[in-house]
């Protein structure tokens, strides 16, 4: 490589520093959570329950609530997103397709806190009535809103995959007399399978990483959730809620453990995503 000028060195230095910061974040959280991690309590930290008064700082209830909430949200969002992507790519009348995608893009710009705020006053009372007891702040309430929140992300991936099918295949299907719905089912959908898997992973990542919906709607009690109708506290909410505690307490250190878990989950999802899709195919 040829020698770089000072300005080019500056570009390089900035890039490397920003990259190192990403790794440094994990290191910093590990250092701050160290008093909890080093005494061999890793298993009881990950698997134990949250009883700060009794000196037990396990984050298992939060981990379970996070995973449960994210998975149910994805299960709800996949059919919604797949159906909308089908419509936008092939099934809606051609004139409606681009307004449909515009609508989806606009949805992706709605702030999370707005969804949470609207749901507190519109959805929570409905859930309270429907369940018949409790406050209406349940994991299911949060999952319903989260599904709507992550749908645009998934739709963009799905549509990208369905549209990336080579033109020649598409023309061949047309020449055989396929209707749009046949083309979708027997050509586009099988071809786009990796992109659809990637979209689902992406949606799962967004659902796991979201803070405000869980925090505002899921009720936040730090107990192991029994069902989707009970309240729960996600890992992300836990970080937001314990923040007020004394900086030197063990409770406070446990939020760095939550941070580390979330960081590693994200890194794993990113690794899966990179395996499934080459960089060029990502929207």
């Amino acid at each position, binding site marked *: 490589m040829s020698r*770089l000028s000072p*300005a*080019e060195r*500056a570009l*390089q230095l*900035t*890039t*490397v520093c*920003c*990259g190192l910061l990403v790794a440094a*974040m994990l290191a*910093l*959280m590990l250092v701050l959570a160290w008093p909890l991690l080093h005494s061999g309590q890793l298993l009881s930290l990950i698997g134990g329950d949250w009883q700060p008064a009794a000196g037990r700082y396990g984050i298992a209830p939060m981990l379970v609530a996070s995973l449960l909430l994210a998975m149910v949200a994805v299960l709800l969002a996949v*059919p*919604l997103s*797949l*159906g*909308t992507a*089908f*419509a936008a790519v092939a099934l809606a009348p051609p004139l409606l397709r681009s307004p*449909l995608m515009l609508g989806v893009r*606009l*949805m*992706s*710009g*709605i*702030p999370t*806190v*707005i969804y*949470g*705020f*609207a749901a*507190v*006053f*519109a959805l929570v009372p409905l859930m309270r009535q429907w369940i018949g007891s409790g406050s209406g702040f349940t994991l299911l309430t949060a999952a319903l809103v989260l599904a*709507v929140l992550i*749908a645009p992300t998934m739709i963009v991936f799905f549509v990208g995959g369905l549209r990336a099918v080579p033109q020649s295949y598409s023309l061949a299907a047309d020449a055989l007399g396929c209707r749009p*719905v*046949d083309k979708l*089912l027997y050509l586009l959908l099988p071809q786009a399978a990796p992109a659809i898997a990637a979209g689902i992973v992406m949606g799962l*990542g967004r659902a796991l*990483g*979201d*803070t405000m919906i869980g925090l*505002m709607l899921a009720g936040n009690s730090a107990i192991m959730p029994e069902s989707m109708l009970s309240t729960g506290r996600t890992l*992300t909410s836990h*970080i*937001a809620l314990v923040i007020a505690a004394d*900086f030197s307490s063990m409770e406070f250190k446990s*939020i*760095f453990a939550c*941070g580390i878990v*979330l*960081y590693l989950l*994200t*890194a794993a999802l*990113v690794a899966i*995503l*990179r395996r499934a899709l080459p*960089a060029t195919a990502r929207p």
Partner: protein
Amino acid sequence: MRKALAGLTIAFSSAATLLLFAAVLLFVGVIVFRGWPGLAPGLIFGDTRPLDALLLRRQVFDGLFPAMAGTLALVALTMTLAVPAGLATGIYLAEYARGRGKALLSLLFDILAGLPSIVVGLAGLALTIVLHRLFPGRIGPCLLISALALAFLVLPYLVRSVQLALESVPRTLRLTAPALGADKLTTIRAVLLPACLPEIAGGIILAVGRAIEDTAVIMLTGAVASAGVPRSLLAQYEALPFYIYYISGQYADPEELQRGFAAALLLLAMCVVMLVAAQWLARRGSLRRQP
């Protein structure tokens, strides 16, 4: 059998599309209908005279002015920090980085793009704790820390938009300046960056939209419910999204709730405008690329 499947698919697709749009319209409708009556002259400045508030002669206690000023200061500071870093990184990744180095760096930025914003906020808080130990009593959660953390959060959006734009400049354009004897840096500055301006502007606006709406980062790094107009980089501050979150759980009377809905409507409108602008710019950029 196949016919039934086709029919089912069409029915399923229409139902899913309608359901999704109905759900989003329901949420947006609630905000618009309940927020609209709140858009009165007193919403932003309360009982204070607007001029007095703008000149910081008087504090506004019953309006959104402190929260809006806080959000404005926060976003301006965030972008001041993030845009140079994002540009430099995007340019380096697109034009200089090769092989293993590039693969490793883009992996790191992919991870950063996927990180939950609360984790970025937590890193900001960790930084605060470290700084607090180094300078006891001087540094706590504040505007500057929030802006640093938010800048880090939006960095991948900027990097990606710059990198993608540069990488998609057609070869014919890319070769013009070197053919005239320009070196690499001059080519980037005089030819490539101007050609990518709409996409880069679109990326910046997208990042602004992301910075305006984020709540998780700022609630960990210094946003509070009542602080007045931000007076220093090292002071706590109010912000619009945090105000909305706070009102949802802590409103004391119908009047406050009404102001919360109006704040939500304002934030929603800002984000939608940003998004439309970003879309328009990105589209202009890609239209120009067509031969």
